[in-house]
């Protein structure tokens, strides 16, 4: 037990080193998602809040980044409890009622529309340097290592998270850009999963949707190993418990990332099916 505590303290101290700041108030805050088991993992790993965090969609959703936007809206509730949030977009397709359903406080949200990736980065940096916000989000396609380094520095100094929601116009661009190195402390992938239900049967009508299921991959992280979770979010329940804005999302599995995509998918499905019957 003692050893475990020492380990945690050691990690905290190590987390301070890369920043090399004179004021040692960091890492007062760690990145959180509002999902208990994910947050426990992030807390153990001491993933700092004031940093660049990348969130990308999966194949097919790289253009819209819908799941990523939903996950962001959900986690902003945990990461930016007070203060202004700036969301820089390029396409005017963010839909306020949908965001509100994820519990994001729209009174604190300021939308900025930019025309190019470079403008998004510029706006993000300005926002980070203004010192009057609690989080910034940028929807961006092509990124250079240098641009992200600048953002990382600015986010570190501001002590607030800078989320990069990746959106690529084409699949080809997505393939090229997806694995490009960027100066992000954590890199996430949000993949919608099929709702776990009985295998295909000759149903007379299509089944109902039920809660949304996502697989959450933390596939690169500065202080921790990669990890994946399966989470479930029920729009209907969220709406019923508006008095307590607690996410109904829950991390259901906590396991290392499988070696091959096929195995990965298999594992995801297996867990999901388990859910249904367990």
């Amino acid at each position, binding site marked *: 037990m003692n050893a475990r505590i020492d380990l945690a303290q050691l990690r905290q101290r190590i987390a301070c080193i890369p920043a090399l700041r004179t004021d040692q108030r960091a890492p007062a805050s760690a990145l959180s998602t509002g999902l208990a088991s994910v947050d426990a993992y992030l807390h153990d790993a001491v993933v700092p809040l004031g940093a660049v965090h990348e969130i990308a969609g999966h194949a097919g959703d790289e253009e819209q980044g*819908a799941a990523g936007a939903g996950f962001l809206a959900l986690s902003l509730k945990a990461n930016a409890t007070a*203060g202004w949030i700036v969301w820089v977009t390029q396409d005017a397709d963010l*839909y306020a009622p949908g965001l509100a359903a994820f519990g994001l406080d729209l009174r604190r949200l300021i939308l900025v529309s930019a025309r190019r990736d470079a403008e998004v980065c510029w706006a993000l940096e300005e926002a980070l340097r203004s*010192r009057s916000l609690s989080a910034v989000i940028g929807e961006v396609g092509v990124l250079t290592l240098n641009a992200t380094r600048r953002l990382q520095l600015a986010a570190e100094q501001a002590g607030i998270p800078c989320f990069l929601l990746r959106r690529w116009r084409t699949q080809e661009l997505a393939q090229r850009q997806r694995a490009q190195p960027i100066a992000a402390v954590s890199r996430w992938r949000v993949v*919608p999963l099929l709702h776990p239900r009985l295998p295909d049967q000759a149903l007379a009508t299509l089944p109902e949707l039920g809660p949304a299921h996502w697989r959450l991959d933390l596939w690169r992280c500065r202080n921790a190993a990669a990890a994946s979770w399966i989470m479930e979010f029920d729009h209907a329940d969220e709406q019923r418990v508006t008095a307590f804005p607690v996410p109904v999302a829950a991390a259901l599995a906590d396991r290392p990332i499988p070696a091959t995509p096929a195995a990965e998918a298999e594992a995801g499905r297996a867990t999901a099916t388990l859910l249904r019957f367990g």
Partner: protein
Amino acid sequence: MLAAQAGNRLEIQAVNLAARALGLKPGVAVADARAWVPQVIVVALDPAADAADLKRLADWTTRFSPLVTIDGADGLMLDIAGCAHLWGSEARMLADLDRHMRAFGLTHRSAIADTIGAAWAAARFGAGSNQIVPHGQQKIALLDLPPPALRLPEELCAQLQRLGLKRVADLCALPRAALARRFGAVVMDRLDQALGRQDETLSPLLPPPQCYVRMDFAEPITQRADIDRALDLLLKRLTEALGPHESGPRKLDLSCYRLDGETQRLSIGTARASLDAAHLFRLFEEKLDLLRPDDGFEAMRLSGREMEKLRAQQRDFEAGGAVSHDLAPLIDRLSNRLGEDAVHRFETRESHIPERAVRRLPPLAESPRLHWPKASQRPVRLLPHPEPIEAVAPIPDDPPVQFRWRHVLHRVRAAEGPERIAPEWWLPGEEDAEIRDYYRVEDAEGRRFWLYRAGLYQATPAPRWFLHGMFG
């Protein structure tokens, strides 16, 4: 000599001094003029180019006064109340104007008077150019001038001429009531306006600034560093002058007067009135690259519009007091570079139509109203325009079993709906809008979409389907 088609003959419209000395004047046919003076140069009249040049000249004259308006096809009117002292006196101001006009190669006539009418008359009909009608002496100046000097309609002038009323003095001698009865109220109005018995104001070309500072340079400046310093000084002077009034402008215009008569203008806007010179400088700084000094600027003017009371919070911020969560500087910088409407917030609009349920608000608006009906699930992304899809729905009023969107085939594995949204037929342009039946569907990969069928189900023509949004 300028000529233009008049009826079926080419007529002289305007002549220069040399031609006038030879006896050529407007109204003469070009053919006659050629016979008279064979070496005359005839140039076609281009009213559009003339108007554009006059507009440019009007821009340039804002260096004398912010209140400038174009008068007809060939005149400018400036309201110089309170401006002349910047040149020392009205005479020196007029001399400066004269010098510049000569430098531009323009022949001009100008005059200063108490009223618009008197100045107009003196400039166009007075003896010689650069006339200054002394304060309160409009009547003396006007008496000897012909009636057209009163800006009367042409046919009225001809009528007066026929009656032998050749001077303004003749009009003044007649009883007012008789004059008004005989020729209409316009004569009395114009006379009263010229004499200052009736008020008249200019409607300026540009919105009038509520405050401004200007700076003339002994030597034209071309270097960016000099422009920076001049702007810095102007901003400091303006903010210092406004400080005691506790109000500041929300729009600032910087006019730079170039040596060749061109005027270049930069504008910035702020989300909230600001007197922070450093902040305002940063907003201008991004745009200074747009200036093209060429031969140099000889004067710069900074003017403010849309004055607003300063808020207490902002003064704290300037004084470097308590840390303030003041968003205004950030919003200014963002909207200055990305466009005025690039920064906004969401607010609920009372509408059932999804794309109309959200309104954009200015970023610093007071507490937006946010209440969307909780019962209906809405996507995170809504396409600005619903995109047509090819959908296969075997049973009427059922969700599609598969659909093709942007060349990709999606098999539907689960679906919910329909949610019927009726058009708002009472709005203009919505009379023909169709009912929409919305479905939430999940495809084989787990992605969730928001689709709708336009119109009620019918076998023929085949129903049209659209994809409108994506759920997280």
